[in-house]
């Protein structure tokens, strides 16, 4: 009795979740059946039931019927949907997830694989790698599954030939290495699932193999590490008011928190202190919580927060952005199209999102990439998305949970993606006001009087375009022309400000954002002084330009100096493109960093095709009209 109660109290660890993937008919379900039988995990009577099902269909004993629970699956001999089944060895418990290998059911394979801690990739020794073998291997990598055991199956059909095993192994290794997988921890095991050779015991059929059996290799896999060391991320799932408490509920996705911590909510940027951590049934006060727990907290101030916001600590908040790159897998029946709007879900938030650009589509067969204007079903691609408002997120390689999202089209989940922010800045940086106790004072000279005195309105003519598009040339020509006509005009140029106002900044995405922020404020000061201020900066990010516009929308005029990359690269007045192509300059716009063209610029000049004089005439006409005292 004592013995029994102590065993009942054994604290179990979570079962390790292993997905079995591979091409259709390479023997996934059979391998699972064998693993079950040979570890003694089959319930009584199951063997006989499978025997009966097989006989009813006039087939030899079919292991696959263990997992293929649906009549349709047994009749067609293929797995349709993903199945979960528990078993254990002496070392620990497992959940095996049987994923369909048929092309039709990639959505079900992802449903299964996305929950797994590790994978077994099954490859037929006769056929070697096939399309779905490659696609599954690619998807495993994309989903972040880093532990993969490769079972080279059906060795009985190649006469247990070692040379054939080595040949298929080499093919698999080459492909996995191409994905960037560290092969030192990838075991390749020759097995015959039908006969059980090398599944849980080494068979006599392959004396040349003395490595681990499949079951031993599973026992060597490692459970996932909880994300406790990462910064706190608590997406708000709901706000409850069932009684006098107002409880913010959610699951801590990474990090930990304590009573008394100040939470920063993004994107609203509101802050409040945790007053209490709530729990039912009450068994003493909860003082701290950690990643993985579904919790509820009350705050010391009644700030308005809603579902979708991400709470963090002040010191390490998520990025804020309205543009990001996703490496996606697409499951929709309709292709993903550039320019289309979808709904995205990231943790508990939901946003409308536009497909700005499809950067490339990846061919899983040769790992090559191609340009495309659409992403077809089951394909993998890199896509730039844009949201209207700023949203909180993390790059996937910083946080695996707040760095991924799904795409919804009407009623269906049609894709998933991992976030990569290379070349894009954290827009939160530019929003900080560090000094406090600052008050605005009113000028006693109205701006209209300044205009009267100058004979024209003030404002900012903001030129944006690639390096070499002609911004500086046009800016300085226009300045000279207008000055001679009596205008109060001054140019702020990229190279010049970097010698002074912005000499402490480089060209990283964050520094670019700060550069434009400073220049923007300086330009608006000129405009408020009554000047016509012309700026000539690449200013590649749309969000940065929009922020300058928002400082004084009535004074801001965006001029898109539109020359294509090829033209700019041919001109290359400073030899910078050549250097960038040689990899000597990092983050070079157009080559290794993005340029986001304006959508609604007041003026667009096609400098690939028209002369400097023609562009200048167009611009000066615009200035005469728009900056006249009588304009508007």
């Amino acid at each position: 009795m004592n013995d029994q109660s102590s065993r009942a109290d054994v604290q179990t660890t979570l079962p390790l979740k292993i997905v079995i993937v591979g091409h259709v008919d390479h023997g996934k379900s059979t391998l699972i059946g064998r693993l079950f039988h040979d570890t003694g995990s089959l319930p009584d009577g199951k063997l006989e039931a499978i025997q009966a099902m097989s006989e009813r269909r006039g087939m030899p004993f079919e292991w696959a019927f263990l997992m293929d629970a649906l009549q349709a699956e047994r009749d067609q001999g293929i797995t349709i949907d993903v199945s979960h089944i528990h078993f254990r060895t002496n070392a620990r418990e497992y959940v095996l997830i049987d994923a369909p290998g048929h092309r039709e059911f990639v959505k079900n394979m992802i449903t299964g694989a996305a929950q797994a801690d590790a994978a077994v990739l099954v490859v037929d020794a006769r056929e070697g790698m096939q399309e779905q073998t490659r696609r599954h291997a690619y998807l495993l990598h994309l989903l972040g599954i880093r532990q993969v055991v490769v079972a080279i199956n059906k060795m009985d059909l190649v006469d247990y030939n070692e040379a054939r095993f080595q040949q298929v192994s080499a093919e698999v290794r080459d492909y996995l290495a191409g994905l960037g997988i560290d092969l030192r921890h990838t075991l390749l095991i020759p097995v015959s699932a039908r006969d059980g050779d090398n599944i849980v015991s080494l068979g006599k059929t392959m004396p040349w193999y003395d490595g681990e059996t499949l079951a031993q290799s599973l026992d060597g896999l490692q459970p996932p590490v909880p994300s406790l060391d990462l910064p706190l991320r608590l997406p708000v799932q709901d706000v409850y008011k069932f009684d006098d408490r107002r409880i913010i509920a959610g699951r801590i996705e990474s990090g930990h928190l304590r009573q008394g911590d100040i939470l920063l909510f993004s994107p609203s940027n509101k802050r409040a202190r945790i007053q209490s951590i709530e729990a039912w049934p009450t068994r003493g006060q909860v003082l701290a919580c950690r990643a993985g727990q579904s919790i509820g907290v009350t705050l010391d101030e009644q700030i308005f927060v809603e579902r979708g916001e991400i709470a963090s600590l002040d010191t390490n908040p998520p990025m804020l952005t309205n543009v990001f790159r996703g490496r996606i897998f697409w499951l929709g029946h309709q292709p993903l199209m550039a320019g289309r709007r979808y709904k995205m879900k990231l943790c508990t938030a939901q946003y409308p999102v536009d497909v700005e650009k499809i950067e490339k589509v990846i061919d899983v067969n040769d790992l090559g990439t191609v340009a495309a204007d659409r992403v077809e079903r089951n394909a993998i691609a890199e896509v730039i998305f844009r949201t209207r408002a700023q949203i909180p997120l993390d790059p996937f390689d910083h946080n695996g949970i707040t760095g991924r999202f799904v795409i919804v089209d009407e009623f269906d989940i049609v894709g998933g993606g991992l976030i990569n922010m290379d070349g894009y800045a954290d827009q939160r940086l530019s929003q900080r006001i560090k000094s406090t106790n600052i008050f605005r004072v009113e000028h006693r000279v109205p701006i209209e009087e300044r205009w009267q005195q100058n004979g024209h309105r003030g404002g900012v003519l903001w030129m944006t375009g690639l390096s070499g598009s002609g911004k500086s040339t046009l800016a300085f020509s226009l300045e000279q022309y207008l000055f001679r006509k009596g205008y109060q005009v001054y140019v702020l140029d990229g190279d010049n400000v970097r010698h002074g106002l912005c000499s402490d900044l480089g060209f990283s995405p964050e520094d670019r954002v700060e550069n434009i922020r400073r220049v923007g404020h300086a330009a608006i000061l000129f405009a408020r002084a009554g000047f016509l201020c012309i700026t000539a900066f690449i200013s590649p990010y749309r969000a940065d330009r929009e922020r300058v516009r928002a400082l004084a929308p009535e004074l801001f005029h965006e001029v898109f100096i539109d020359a294509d990359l090829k033209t700019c690269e041919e001109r290359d007045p400073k030899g910078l493109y050549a250097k960038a192509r040689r990899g000597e300059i990092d983050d070079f716009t157009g080559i290794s960093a993005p340029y986001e063209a304006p959508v609604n610029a007041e003026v667009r000049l096609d400098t690939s095709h028209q002369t400097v004089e023609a562009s200048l005439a167009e611009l000066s006409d615009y200035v005469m009209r728009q900056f006249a005292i009588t304009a508007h």
Partner: protein
Amino acid sequence: MSALPAAMAALSMLGRLRRFGGAGEGLHGRTKAFDTGSGAVKKLPGQLLASGVSMDHLDVLESRTIYILREAFNKIDKLAMLWSLGKDSNVMLWCAKKAFFGHVPFPLVNIDTGMKFPEMYEFRDRYIKEWNLDCLIAQCPPVEEMDPTLPPAARSAARKTAALKRVLREQGYTGVIAGIRRDEEGTRAKERVFSPRSEQNTWNFRDQPPEFWDQFNTDFPPGTHLRVHPILHWTEIDIWRYTKREAIPLVPLYFSRNGKRYRSLGDKNITFPVDSQASTLDEIISELMETKIAERTGRAMDHEAEDSFERLRADGYM
């Protein structure tokens, strides 16, 4: 895609660790389990560094169940929870009280076949009062109205589906929470957490929507409804361990009397007890660690024909 640097570092460290995992005691002293010879699983150093009390297996299961219940409550306007009075149902209800801090913010529905054991009715009436539950009791139509081509026990069980459909129609629920588990039975093993049902309540198992990263399909065309399965990922033994840890009340039929007990509770005409001496929670847990008898062995409707349960479920059974 850039690799996860931390995960890669952990992996390479583990690659070294696993070579030292020589023969040792398994985590469970289970005699019948097959010994693969690679010994106990090493715990990661990373797990030991973190502050606070670590989450065990049951905490992880509970946290996910709470997350699912909160998603359902947030996303579904007309929501109800099926309460069958069984062990799984009671764990689910307990987790709801945790998720909503002592409240159950949606009605419960108890489908009454009129064929339940008296102990179950006693249990129901007691806890409706004690826990102050809002519980709708739905009566089932007579067996004569059920599909006559079904085998007898399945035909009897189909009464529950009919009652459920009627409740859904009459109350206008757009979501029902049900306490099924993947390890119970093969077609349930293929279920989604948020599983759509057509206007006729049917389950289109041939084309289920993808579901990953705990992003559930919560949008569906008008007229359809959702089945939400918050304890899909639990096993039978998890349910018992959690019931013990949390001291959740139970119908006494689960405990052995005269050498027999019920492992799964259904209608008294189509549910049979199994041989067992287990008369306490600890004894039940020990028994389950050893047994090779399937949980639903005593549920006649599962075994009449190869596809009888699949047919029931495709038609809308839980």
